[in-house]
């Protein structure tokens, strides 16, 4: 009942947004609204704000390029490609984040020394590291397996994804009540058992949002890295390529944007599913 209601309202919200878009497009001046000499409301020309139905119908028209497939299909393929890389990046990021969190929880010195660098790592612009990662990676060759650009993109995704996991999980691992820790101590069990029986279960309410943020971050990292190194197949590459058509085909650049949102939502949805399977460990949570 309430679920139906909230979905309904959500849909209504999207409709409202669409109506606002079209109404503003209809009444707003082509050159946008200026305050002083700063544009505060956007331009409404067809090039800047295509009609929503134009965007929608563009999706059903051929994408151009080799296959002649409709745009939605090409973007859909790119979504899958991006999703796959993001998933790899997410897994790697989550593992690294977890390990770092464990290290920092276990050794106070490690926390003091590493945590500031973890924060600092996220201030490095990706566009600076993406080509570097590609270059470093290309030096790697293990047996018949050789590093390729996809791996570089996945690493970039992991670079963004590990952060929320490391920070969130560290908090989660420190979340148990002092009483619970005392209890484990009275049972004479060591760090490992305490971790397994207490810290890990207690960290779930922190881990899940961290995983969701990591999923979003992985998608963002994948797309940015795809743009940066021009990796073919994904959403990021379509952002570049469709931009070139922006003048003559203004609805086209919106397609990869929608694709990026879809990928992000799918990723977040996956984590939500994961959350369902861990429900028992979230009993302590106060209604979110």
């Amino acid at each position, binding site marked *: 009942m309430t679920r139906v209601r909230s979905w309904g309202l959500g849909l209504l919200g999207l409709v409202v947004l669409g109506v606002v878009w079209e109404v503003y497009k209809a009444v707003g001046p082509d050159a946008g609204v200026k305050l002083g000499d700063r544009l505060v409301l956007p331009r409404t020309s067809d*090039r800047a704000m295509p009609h929503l139905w134009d965007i929608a119908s563009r999706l059903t028209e051929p994408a151009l390029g080799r296959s002649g497939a409709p745009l939605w299909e090409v973007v859909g393929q790119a979504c899958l490609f991006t999703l796959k890389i993001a998933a790899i990046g997410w897994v790697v990021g989550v593992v690294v984040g977890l390990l770092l969190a464990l290290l920092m929880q276990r050794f106070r010195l490690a926390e003091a020394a590493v945590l500031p660098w973890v924060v600092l790592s996220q201030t490095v612009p990706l566009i600076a590291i993406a080509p570097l990662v590609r270059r470093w990676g290309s030096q790697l060759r293990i047996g018949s397996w050789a590093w390729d650009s996809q791996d570089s993109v996945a690493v970039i995704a992991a670079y963004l994804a590990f952060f929320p996991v490391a920070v969130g999980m560290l908090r989660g691992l420190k979340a148990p009540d002092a009483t619970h820790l005392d209890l484990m101590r009275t049972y004479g069990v060591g760090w490992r058992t305490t971790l397994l029986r207490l810290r890990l279960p207690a960290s779930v309410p922190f881990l899940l949002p961290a995983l969701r943020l990591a999923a979003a971050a992985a998608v963002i990292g994948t797309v940015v890295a795809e743009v940066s190194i021009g990796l073919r197949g994904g959403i990021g590459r379509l952002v570049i390529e469709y931009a070139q058509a922006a003048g003559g085909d203004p609805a086209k650049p919106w397609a990869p944007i929608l694709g990026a949102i879809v990928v992000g939502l799918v990723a977040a949805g996956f984590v939500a599913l994961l959350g369902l399977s861990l429900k028992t460990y979230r009993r302590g949570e106060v209604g979110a």
Partner: protein
Amino acid sequence: APGASASGSGEASLTPVKLQLQWVAQAQFAGYYAALDQGYYKEQGLDVSIVEGGPDIVPQDVLSAGDVDYAISWVPKVLGSIEKGAKITNVAQIFERSGTTQISFKSKGITSPADLKGKNVGSWGYGNEWELFAGMQKAGVAVGDIKLVQQAFDMNGFLAGDIDAAQAMTYNEYAQVLESENPDTGQLYTPADLNVISWNDVGTNMLQDAIWANSEKLSSDTAYQDQTTKFIKASIKGWVYARDNAQAAADVVTNAGSQLGKSHQLWQTNEVNKLIWPSTSGGIGMISDVAWSRTVGIAKGTKNETGATIISADPPETAKNMTYVEKALTELKSEGVDVEGKGFTPVTVTLEKGGA
């Protein structure tokens, strides 16, 4: 990736070769895709894979790092890298002319570099801006006299009037504008709507797409030397194919995964052909000394917005080496291939909306 490699299962004898492009797959690189598609590389015993570029990929550095065997890049960009220590050599100057222009709507009245004064001038940066600066410098316009705007991947800034004079490659952005609708007329823009400053006309044109090879390997590795000749030879054959079969070459590029529309792709093939053919330097790939020294001169003497020049001294001897292309041309000529294209006539391309 489709079309990236020509290796067949039974052809172990082929030498694997990687070519780094300067940008993503498009007809700017039609010759290489054609050579791959037509089996010219295979004929030479080469198993070529083409590695696409991207905004942050610097082909000459990928080459220096040893990740690829050859790279396509513009001469002025590479001269800077060479001065920074990259050990690479121009072994074939494929484009003889510059495709870079500065375009503006007629209404802006910008017909010469001097008119850029006080205007919003677009440029991509990334080393694509030097001809513009040289042209301005020649016309006595200081960098401070214009407002320099970094141009995006699209031409919307130009179309919306944010940028008065935009940088445009004849084979790409110029066409993007011509594929766009003029909101006043409901028709596509036409060349008559635009003023075009071509750096070829101004005289500040610099050498663009060339094939670059690893200097150190060239000087020591005879197999690599041999392979270079073969690679150039097959590539030139590809370009000859693109000249003689523009539509087919465009389709090859499209099949290789380019997302550009058909008319745009053909336009690009045709315009690129115009930058190559007819060859006035003794055959495709040869560098005229005039063009080289002009390029080097501009690279030394032109300051960008931060006051820097591309290079401060003449490039080393190893910056170019025509031995291999000469050899390739000799062989090709003996095979009866027209490597000068004196009789080249461009095709007529009608651009469709959105390049479709």
